[in-house]
């Protein structure tokens, strides 16, 4: 057990940082209080480095037997997107208060400043997210999920001074508690059905005895509860309201952190169930469903989740994509558009979850596709929200600056703030999945893994949905890049926080640059998705040849280089 500490250093580093930040925030000296953000950033970087240095050792030492190499990839991803998110958080709380203290209008009062608490919550949530990635036990997973979510409720409520944010916070909290109760009950039933809370033990039990009804009900309830975290269909309705009510930088946080936690948990649970098993069914629920070509190949192995769970996830994926995209089209508010688009992206990723690891190569493994898409989506979404966080309207009566609300508010950005217009455009194009940006290379493995698992109908639905999504992303691009500036009396002015712009620019640059040099990341995610199962497994991946050896398989004459003739 003590071995596991070495896999938990990143979390420990984050936790220590959290404590330091909380103490620092109480300092009388304003310079020390300003340090909190810096210390938070340092903590994140240290955690990222520690995570990167973790050697993934397959086997029980890391706790994760099923996905032995998930931990380093997931934690480095969390730390890097977390750092970008941190850049975006500058000036979220205490803006007026600090200004007043600096101007000497008010003495420093530790009860009135929230800066340290805010960053502490930020770190707590990321710690929880990292813990999710290291989970190998239902109890652990439950605690990690709660640690991820509880701080976010408060972050939403305190993100702006407006009543709207508090309302959003309360709404988010109540529905979050409902979601938690549902997956908790699911966990209880899984435990009941398999007699263990350890994921590896559960997997072994399922491999030996098949899936019984109690465990099946448990898994279904657990997925249903996790749908709240990823904002998938039956539990999606909070997303638009909460994203709208929270400050844009917090919405960006919500769109990534709980979603990543949900997807990592879903991956762990589906890995526990397993995508492949002997076709000579163990238990009635293991009837083979997907006639992938591997059937013909091996005869003994069937691919795909057990039928009820497959159908359940299939329906959720299809509905989530469609509902998210259709509702996004109907919205006026930029934040609501992005909220519904983030719902749709959850649907896309569920397709790959459903597809499973297949033969484990990047182009066919759904797990790798999900892990890679989390990055793609995280970066693209962050850029779009960063643009909103960089702009604000005139302050209202309470001194609270108005937020960018309607699509009309970002009209004519190309003239007033060309940089932000380009950030918005690139992020939207990236999220749309237009080649040659990163979004396309994220979406391509979703398609191919779905095809490899034989989910052709779902892949076609995915394709059509991508096309529908183009419509509302185009609206955002049109507003920011094409329309003339609006002459309304609330011109959007930039917020005085350069780091927010930096976050936006970095993520937009990521959307472009990673598309060309992302090969290494793809390899990493492929490795992170390595799946070891006790069940009958698909044949090992064929050795990867150089993709095209001229002359190997073409009867036509080769291209003649000019010099050769």
């Amino acid at each position, binding site marked *: 057990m003590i071995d596991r500490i070495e896999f938990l250093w990143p979390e420990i580093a984050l936790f220590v940082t959290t404590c330091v930040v909380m103490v620092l925030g109480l300092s009388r000296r304003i310079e020390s209080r300003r340090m909190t953000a810096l210390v938070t950033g340092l903590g994140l970087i240290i955690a990222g480095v520690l995570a990167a240095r973790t050697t993934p050792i397959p086997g029980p030492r890391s706790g994760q037997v099923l996905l032995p190499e998930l931990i380093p990839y997931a934690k480095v991803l969390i730390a890097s997107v977390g750092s970008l998110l941190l850049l975006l958080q500058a000036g979220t709380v205490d803006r007026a208060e600090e200004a007043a203290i600096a101007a000497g209008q008010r003495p420093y009062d530790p009860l009135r400043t929230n800066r340290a608490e805010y960053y502490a919550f930020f770190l707590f949530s990321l710690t929880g997210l990292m813990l999710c990635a290291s989970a190998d036990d239902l109890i652990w997973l439950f605690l990690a999920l709660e640690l991820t979510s509880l701080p976010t409720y408060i972050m939403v409520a305190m993100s702006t001074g407006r009543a709207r944010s508090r309302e959003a916070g309360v709404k988010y909290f109540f529905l979050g508690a409902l979601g938690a109760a549902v997956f908790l009950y699911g966990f209880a039933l899984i435990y009941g059905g398999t007699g263990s809370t350890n994921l590896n033990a559960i997997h072994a039990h399922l491999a030996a005895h098949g899936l019984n009804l109690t465990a099946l009900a448990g898994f279904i309830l657990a997925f249903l509860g996790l749908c709240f975290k990823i904002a998938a269909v039956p539990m999606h309705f909070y997303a638009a309201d909460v994203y709208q009510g929270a400050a844009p930088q917090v919405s960006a946080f919500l769109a990534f952190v709980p979603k990543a936690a949900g997807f990592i948990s879903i991956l762990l649970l589906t890995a526990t169930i397993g995508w492949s098993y002997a076709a000579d069914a163990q238990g009635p629920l293991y009837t083979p469903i997907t006639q992938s*070509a591997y059937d013909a190949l091996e005869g003994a192995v069937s691919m795909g989740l057990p039928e009820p769970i497959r159908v359940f996830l299939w329906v959720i994926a299809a509905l989530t994509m469609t509902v998210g995209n259709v509702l996004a089209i109907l919205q006026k508010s930029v934040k609501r558009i992005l909220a519904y688009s983030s719902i749709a992206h959850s649907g896309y990723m569920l397709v790959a979850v459903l597809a499973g690891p297949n033969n484990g190569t990047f182009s066919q493994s759904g797990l790798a596709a999900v892990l890679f898409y989390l990055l793609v989506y995280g970066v693209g979404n962050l850029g779009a929200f960063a643009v909103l966080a960089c702009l604000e309207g005139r302050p209202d009566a309470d001194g609270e600056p108005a937020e960018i609300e309607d699509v009309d508010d970002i009209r004519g950005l190309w003239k007033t703030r060309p940089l932000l217009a380009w950030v918005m455009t690139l992020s939207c194009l990236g999220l749309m999945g*237009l*080649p040659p940006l990163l979004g396309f290379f994220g979406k*391509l493995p979703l398609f191919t893994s779905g095809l490899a698992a034989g989910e052709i109908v779902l892949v076609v639905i995915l394709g059509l949905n991508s*096309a529908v999504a183009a419509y509302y992303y185009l609206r955002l691009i*049109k507003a920011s890049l*094409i329309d003339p500036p609006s002459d309304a009396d609330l011109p959007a002015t930039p917020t005085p926080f350069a780091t927010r712009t930096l976050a936006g620019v970095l993520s937009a640059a990521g959307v472009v640059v990673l598309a060309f040099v992302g090969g290494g990341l793809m390899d990493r995610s492929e490795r992170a998705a390595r799946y070891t199962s006790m069940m009958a497994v698909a044949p090992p991946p064929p050795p*990867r040849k150089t*993709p095209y050896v001229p002359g190997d*398989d073409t009867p036509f004459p080769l291209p003649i280089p000019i010099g050769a003739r």
Partner: protein
Amino acid sequence: MMLASLIIVPLAFALFIAVGPERSAARVSLVGMLATLGLSILAAFAFDWGFGGQFQFGMSVDWLPGLGLTLSLGVDSVALMLVLLTAVLGPVCVLASWTAITERVKTYYAWMMVLQAAMIGVFAARDLVFFYICFEFTLIPMFLLIALYGSTNRMRAATKFFLFTFTGSVVALAGLLYVAWHHAQTRGVWTFEIDALELAARTLPPHVQALILGALLLGFAVKVPLFPLHTWLPLAHTEAPTAGSVILAGVLLKLGTYAIYRFVLPFAPEAVIEYAYPLAVLCTIGIIYGGLVCWVQTDVKKLVAYSSVAHLGFCMLGMFALNHAGVTGSVLYMLNHGLSTGALFLLIGMMYERYHTRSMKEIGGLGARMPVWSTFLVFFVMASVGLPGLNGFVGEFLCLMGAFQASDAWGAGLWGTTPGDSTVGGTRGSLGPWVAAVAGTGMIIAAIYLLYMVGKVVFGTLREPPGHASHADHHAGDAHRAAGLPVDLTRREIGALAPIAALCVFLGVYPKPVLDAVQAPVERTVTTIAEARGKPKFRPPVELAPPAEHAAEGAHP
């Protein structure tokens, strides 16, 4: 490297323009386009036309090996000719925008260069995903060109254009990926090399091929556009700026026909044979319908736009004839249509710049006012109608001949032949004289509406829009005077039109070099089809996934 430089040079110039000053954007862009043209001419000289069927200048660089994606390029003679067409139209478009674009000039020319690179990339790609990336990436520049620089209804047109083509191509992507997956299944290698996928796709059973055909056609036929999917085209053309229309008609539509030539025919030959007749009927409907709609247009630009629907109907008809004459004609038609329709859009743009109207109700008899312009208009209309001696004729004739010959009834005792009689030039197929005859009426309709347009605009009594100067030189304040435009064409404008006109004459009078050059690739396509005809309809499923070491032997069917 030749091809890579053809893509990199425009991109580099786009970067120069983006960082350079606003004033010099147009000039830098012209230099960039001319450099691209020069490079492509160099490529044409370096190309061994004797081996036109082979992909030359091949190169391959790993891009994202995890996805099996390489940056591999290569052209055969068909692709190279389309690259040349693109390169020729580039400088012409810049010249056409010289005075027309006054706002956000840098953005305009930078995107123009990017578009040029993407279009060349489509023709030069030998990797499926790289092809798709370029194919899709043409959308953004074109969207912006229409949305930023178009006329009143531009936003709607741009959005419709984008959504139609994007939706179609996503479905096409699903089809292409299915083929790639099938290749991975049967060969154990995940690759997007077009040659390898071609072979894999042909082993698919006919009903799957039919699905592939459907998916690919949904994507590519939108771009062509084939009859029921054409509705975005007239709108986009009428709203686009002149150069946008020229590129749209000249090259972007060819991306669709080229994709069908490059992917649909070799990937799903059996399905194409099976569905050639309904597809040919769609083409014919497009020809007749497009022609009839042209007839009733008063907006000159819309008329030419709809004429594109009809013309590309011919082009596709030749392709679906699936025989030598038809496919040759179709390839030729791509070039010819790009030249003559592109030039017509240029001419209309020049007229619009002077009169700010395109309605035939408001203008007429311009022959007296703008003799040079009128000469060019009559010339290109003749080319477009298919007057023998000009370029339009050869392609159109070959397309119709292909359709005429492509009938199984030839040699079966019908049409006055005896079985086995190939002396009359019959080939196997399901089209035949009737389809050709109906499509042939389209030529007559084309002659009617185009000449009718010429009659109204060039001849007859002089009519100019109300408020426009009847004697321009007396009204120095007129818009066109402000833009520095004389009544008739400037030397810059003539310089844009003259090379196209020269090419039209050359291709019309002496098409032999082009016809010879496309022989080999067309022969290859036709052979593919002929092989597919010989295959039994029902056959046992393909042997799946030989282990990697047997992969090499499994290749040859």
